[in-house]
């Protein structure tokens, strides 16, 4: 599953992630993530009166230890620069992969390492 994503993954700095500085096995930590994206609803018009085409972030997937632990599907009712905060339980593995995908299939992902003490 990871390999499949990596093929068309664009590693950029558009994703921001905030995790606790350090954590222990068994802790429930808060993970905040944000992606820079205009989230065009498809309802707005530009100055010349043409409709700006719809362009939204559709999915968010969080993989921990090669398993999807949290996923989300968005409509156009989410604000621009989508921001989501959620919780996860820390096991032995430090690898967390965050994947955002827009409605055209473009993916942005970021891999982070938890500092388990």
């Amino acid at each position: 599953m990871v390999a499949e994503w990596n093929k068309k993954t664009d590693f950029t700095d558009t994703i921001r992630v905030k995790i606790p500085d350090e954590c222990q096995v068994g802790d429930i930590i808060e993970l905040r993530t944000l992606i820079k994206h205009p989230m065009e609803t498809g309802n707005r018009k530009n100055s010349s009166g043409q409709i700006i085409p719809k362009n939204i972030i559709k999915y968010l997937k969080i993989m921990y230890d090669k398993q999807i632990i949290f996923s989300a599907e968005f409509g156009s009712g989410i604000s621009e620069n989508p921001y989501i905060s959620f919780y996860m339980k820390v096991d032995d593995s430090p690898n967390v992969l965050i994947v955002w995908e827009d409605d055209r299939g473009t993916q942005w992902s970021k891999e982070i390492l938890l500092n388990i003490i």
Partner: protein
Amino acid sequence: MRNDNQRIAILSRRLFCLKGPSAFILFNFLQQKAFAYNNQDDLRLGSFNIANKLYSDQFSTDLGKILQGAEPLADDIFKLDISEFAENGSIVPFKMAVNHPMNTIEYVKALHLISTLNPNAWVASFVLTPQCGKAEISGRMRLAKTQDVYALAYLSKGQFLISSQKVEVLIGGCGME
């Protein structure tokens, strides 16, 4: 002795006296039933009353798609947290929290967020697993105008929970002109 014609006349009059009012009552009853059903507009929300509130047709279809005939329950353990007044409708912070254990036996499977009067009623759906540890999500949504926002939680035992919040929006956030 009365002849047959007279007997039929009396009978039909008697039948009319009996059947007329009862048919009238039955007709009224059925009509009331039908009217009451129309009022609810297929929104079978169990203990949650939505009858006197404003909502778009899209809201009821989106809600129906999520619930698929199930009846949600309003419970204290599930709360949708949005501030009552939003100055800017394009960024309205929300928080959904379910005070429910998250283990492999029982957990919160999904959370949904629906607006009643946005151009697109459905806002977002979240799928959780026991690995989440805590069923609490926050984010930011858009609101086109003053309206109610509904949140649904789907538990692993097959029960839906519902929670709502009215938000007054000063500047609408969907870019509609």
